């Protein structure tokens, strides 16, 4: 049995993060950790050794874009793909860092899982 991929879910919504973890856990392919505070995302990713980060965009303490900037600035996390989980329409701003993937809420856990697998197979977007 291959080792489980470590997936970090960063979302301030307790129900969303819990249900997503339940759905991903049910596949048996991932080890999922949830962080509800955006400001703790980088520390959680380092501590957990995340292989992919699912990141909410609109959070009360910080924004997904800011968290993404911090993740990208951390040398140990350079290769970790980041997926935006967003309820808002994607913003196309050339000045801000772009994630490797977008997925719109609401989505099925199986859709998120398929995206994680694809992104883990191909690595970070070029």
């Amino acid at each position: 049995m291959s080792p489980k991929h470590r997936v970090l879910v960063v979302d301030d919504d307790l129900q969303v993060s819990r249900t997503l973890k339940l759905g991903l856990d049910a596949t048996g392919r991932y080890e999922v950790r949830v962080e509800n505070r955006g400001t703790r995302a980088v520390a959680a990713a380092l501590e957990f050794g995340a292989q992919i980060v699912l990141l909410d965009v609109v959070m009360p303490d910080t924004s997904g874009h800011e968290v993404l900037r911090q993740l990208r600035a951390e040398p140990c996390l350079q290769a970790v793909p980041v997926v935006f989980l967003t309820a808002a329409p994607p913003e196309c701003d050339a000045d801000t860092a772009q994630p490797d993937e977008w997925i719109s809420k609401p989505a099925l856990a199986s859709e998120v899982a398929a995206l994680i697998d694809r992104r883990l197979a191909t690595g970070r977007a070029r």
Partner: protein
Amino acid sequence: VSVAGAALGAALPGDGSPLRILMVEDVETDAELVLAALRRAQLAFTARRCETAADFVRLLEEFDPHVVLADYSLPQFSALDALALLREQRVRLPFVLVTGTQTEEIAVQCIKEGADDYVLKERLARLPAAVSRAIQTHRTEREKEHAEDALRSSEERYRLIAENTRDLICLLDPNGAVLYVSPSCRELLRYEPAELATAADLWRMPDDAVGRPMGILRLALVDGGANEVQCRHRDGDWRTFEAVGSWVRGDDGGVQHAVVVLRDVTDRKRAEERLREAQLQLIQAEKMESVGRLAAGVAHEVKNPLTVILMGVEYLRQRFDQFEPEVVTLLEDMEASTRKANTVVRGLLDFSTPGTLDRLPVALNSIVEGALALMRHEFARAQTEVVVDLADDLPALELDRHKIEQVFVNLFLNALQSMPEGGRLTVRTWRADENGRRSRAVCAQVEDTGGGIQPDKISKIFDPFFTTKPLGRGTGLGLTVVKKIIDLHGATIAVSNKQTGGVVVSLVFRTGPGE
């Protein structure tokens, strides 16, 4: 004071100066006799005498006489010469012939040439009265001429005003017959004044004004306020005029005429209309902006709960699919409903945010089938018969699947709501033919058997917040979003009422250039 003296007093110049008398007389004693006759009438006067034409002309200038008394025949000059000189000089003076000649022919001849009277030298007692009458006659004539001049000038001024105004000035009798209409009708309405015989030729008569041609001007005529009337232009257009009228009453207080001044305000009204439309558009834009902000907030707040439900349903389906089929169906319905709720939220977002499409080659039929699947419970609940007629030879189209699905869901929802008692919904797709060849267009139609759209509303159905549905049933955004999505795809949409009742919505998609 004699009667003649009193009359002469009245004939004196108004400034109190003595009467200036120019005498044409070569016999000095005769002149003295004449002046003595006047003195006897107690007339204050000064007199000069001349015997030649040259003197006569000079004294006319220097002496500025009030009256001329002339003998008929002098050696070098005559009364007829004097009259001719006066005519020549364009001087009009009271002129009395004082002569010893007794023939009536001479008198008549002089009067024909402009003399006022004639007096025989042997009957000089008549002279003061003759002078007085001549002066009075001239004064009356002059006053009459002044009055006529004043009238002419006044008429000329009114004519200038009436004929050069850009307004339409009409004089009507109480029955509406046109007595006068200003020539501006040529420019304003392209009619000749003579063609406008009655008020009905001038302005549109409402049905209830038949027999009351002035009824339409009631307000303008009673209150003196402006009243709008529609005047017919020769080219068939109706132009809007502002009418201000007033009654002209006779001494008995009865209405004799109406004066109506009409001003063409068509262009002003059009400008006002354009301004109003611009203001409405501005308000609309502001509304849309606030809806956009609201939508973005709502979307975020609603999408998280939808995520939880959707993922929860999926989790439960995986756990319960070996159990009762009812449970499985229930979970499927929950998933479908959640996706539908998401479609509504996405509609709000699509409406309020700049459109971006995620276009991929896709079969239009599969999108239609997806939308039908989302709606199948609604169809069942409303007892709607659904007829599906999808052509199987359609090329793939570059479409944003979710957005086009949203288009069909919206069209299906509208159709359903127009048929609350049930009915038939038909959806069909086909590939258009063009000159016998397969064209690059793919068509789709959604048809219902509902009540249709009122003809006057059909042009507004894509306007934001326009709805024909009862209060609380429609946001007025459905078709706006549909239109926006269709426009983004470069496709077209047309909505029309069917002859047999109900509405048909037609969509035309173009295949890509590589097709």
